[in-house]
């Protein structure tokens, strides 16, 4: 389910309850669904400041997506943080960082909670956003850490894999654009390590692309299907921003853009 779909679903779920007490019952149920948070992880650095009750939040990055874990000593707060996690866990840092969290207003969470609790909700949202922003900045460092020294033999072995990974990426289309994501210039970097795991850094033509989730998962599947590739991680980046110059000439022709012939002949 995409982020937008998920948010819609939550708004719908909440609209079933007219009475606020019923909404609280629903939140309490949500809280009970939270997966357990290990006691030893409830450290000061994971505590969210600004809540009357204590809320711990932790997150990890896996396959370019953020996965959250949380707990609280108050059960309604636990329900709220569980709701946030349900919506935002498994999204890319960019998606979260760019989200306006407006659905919280739509379900009346912000306006109906007590002043201190509303403050707590704001702190929770701020913390989730901050973690996303932090994670969005991190992939670079992670990729660098993964970098390794390759021997000539390694390169010889890896070279055909690169060609095949490019071919695999060329199979993937943004459904609204009749040019594959590779020729469109969305792929910024391809790295394959000694274990034959592919690391791809890609972008979209615009940060709020509604199909991003689908395209990323298709690209991942397509690359993982390449014989010899053991796995694929995709990082979504928006720095540098995509521009038309990044398209191949072929793509420009397909999309009806002017092609600088001198340049292409050189």
């Amino acid at each position, binding site marked *: 389910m995409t982020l937008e779909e998920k948010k819609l679903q939550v708004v719908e779920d909440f609209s079933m309850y007219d009475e606020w007490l019923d909404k*609280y019952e629903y939140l309490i149920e949500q809280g009970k669904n939270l997966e357990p948070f290990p006691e030893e992880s409830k450290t000061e650095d994971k505590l969210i400041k600004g809540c009357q*009750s*204590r809320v711990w939040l932790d997150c990890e990055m896996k396959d370019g997506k953020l996965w959250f874990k949380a707990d609280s000593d108050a059960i309604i707060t636990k329900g709220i943080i569980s709701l946030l996690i349900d919506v935002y866990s498994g999204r890319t840092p960019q998606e979260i960082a760019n989200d306006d969290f407006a659905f919280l207003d739509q379900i009346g969470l912000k306006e109906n909670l007590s002043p201190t609790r509303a403050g707590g909700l704001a702190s929770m949202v701020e913390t989730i956003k901050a973690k996303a922003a932090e994670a969005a900045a991190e992939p670079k460092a992670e990729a660098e850490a993964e970098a390794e020294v390759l021997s000539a033999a390694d390169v010889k072995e890896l070279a055909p894999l690169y060609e095949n990974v490019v071919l695999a990426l060329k199979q993937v289309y943004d459904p609204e654009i009749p040019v594959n994501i590779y020729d469109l210039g969305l792929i910024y970097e391809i790295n394959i390590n000694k274990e034959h795991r592919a690391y791809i850094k890609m972008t979209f033509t615009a940060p709020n692309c509604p199909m991003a989730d689908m395209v990323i998962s298709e690209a991942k599947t397509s690359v993982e299907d390449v014989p010899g590739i053991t796995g694929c991680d995709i990082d979504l980046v928006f720095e540098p921003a995509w521009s038309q110059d990044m398209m191949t000439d072929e793509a420009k022709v397909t999309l009806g853009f002017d092609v600088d012939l001198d340049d292409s002949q050189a």
Partner: protein
Amino acid sequence: MTIEQLRGQFPILGEKVYGRPLVYLDNAATSQRPLSVVEKWEQITLKSNANLHRAVHKLAADATAEYEGARQAAADFIGAGDAHEIVFTSGATAAINLVAFCFGEAFIKAGDKIIVSEEEHHSNIVPWQMMAQRKGAVLKVLPVDDNGQLRVDMLDDMLSDGKVRLLSVAHISNVLGIVNPVEEIIAKCHKYGCAVLVDGAQGIVHQKVDVTAMGCDFYAFSGHKLYAAPGTGVLYAKKEWLDAFPPYMGGGEMIETVRWTGTTFAKAPHKFEAGTQNISGTPTLVPAFEIATRMREQSIDSEAVAVKDFVYEALKGNPLVRLFGCPDRPEDKIPLFSFCVDGVHHEDLALILDKMGFAVRSGQMCAEPLMDRFGVTGMLRASFAPYNTMEEAQMFINALDKAVKMLR
């Protein structure tokens, strides 16, 4: 006066929240305002608004008369011998800060000691910490026992070295709701030459205060907890202290003459009232004192005592409730109840009760050290005023049961 007539004076009590009748049980945080207070504020604002003391025109004379009239009324209300012993402040916090600063500047040197109790509101802790740090003094803490009673028995030992210059203690704790034996504390302190400030933020609401009989050096309270306009407050200080104090804030009104070569200051209490005062707010203390006095009439007071006894017994009888502040003598308890419910977070309870129409307080109640003392992260507090009825008390106990069932 009947309780219905009394409630009629407080229109907000007829309000609804989330479509349910409001039951306001957060009176220890701030009380509601009667019409008489609103009308006084309106009358001054609409008919005699002018700055005080200086101007010769009619409005200024009227406004000054209202303001100084409130000073006399405050002196009468708390039994001060002289209206010059009444300093108007923005509230109890400002009053305590004034004493902490001025007393510190005039009388505290490195190595001196100050005592506060373990049950104090942050407003009666932090100003003394700041002063102690500035002057190199030491802050000592008078503990409470497991029932929330002050360990007055430890006081002689703490005072015996003769280094304690001042003790500051709540008349009634805003968490425990126990009337402290302030006369006994004051007698002990004075024996050792230690001055006493009584924080009367809660005490003034629930006790008939006579500062002369009590013998305290300072008594501080806020108007807003006693039905007056917010931003009003009173510091009572014995005249000899006020005369010995240096000025606190500099500004207009607190001076006699100002020259580039130096300034001479007005006499107390004006020396401590720099800048434009709360022209429309402070005179609302007068109708506030009137209604507070009427609430002590037999017809109202007997209901208030019945309400207190009912809630006290109901909470004590609930095996899930851990009630903080249970004095040996039940008459020392005021209708202020802070408690935890086994297995339920105080904030969850407050949220559910809110949706049921009850305004209660949850959290640390500005008394973090006391929360640590009892090993809790917070409590739930229901604080009653004489305008709360027995019916409301019963509704509260029922709603509490319902909320606990929902959350456990």
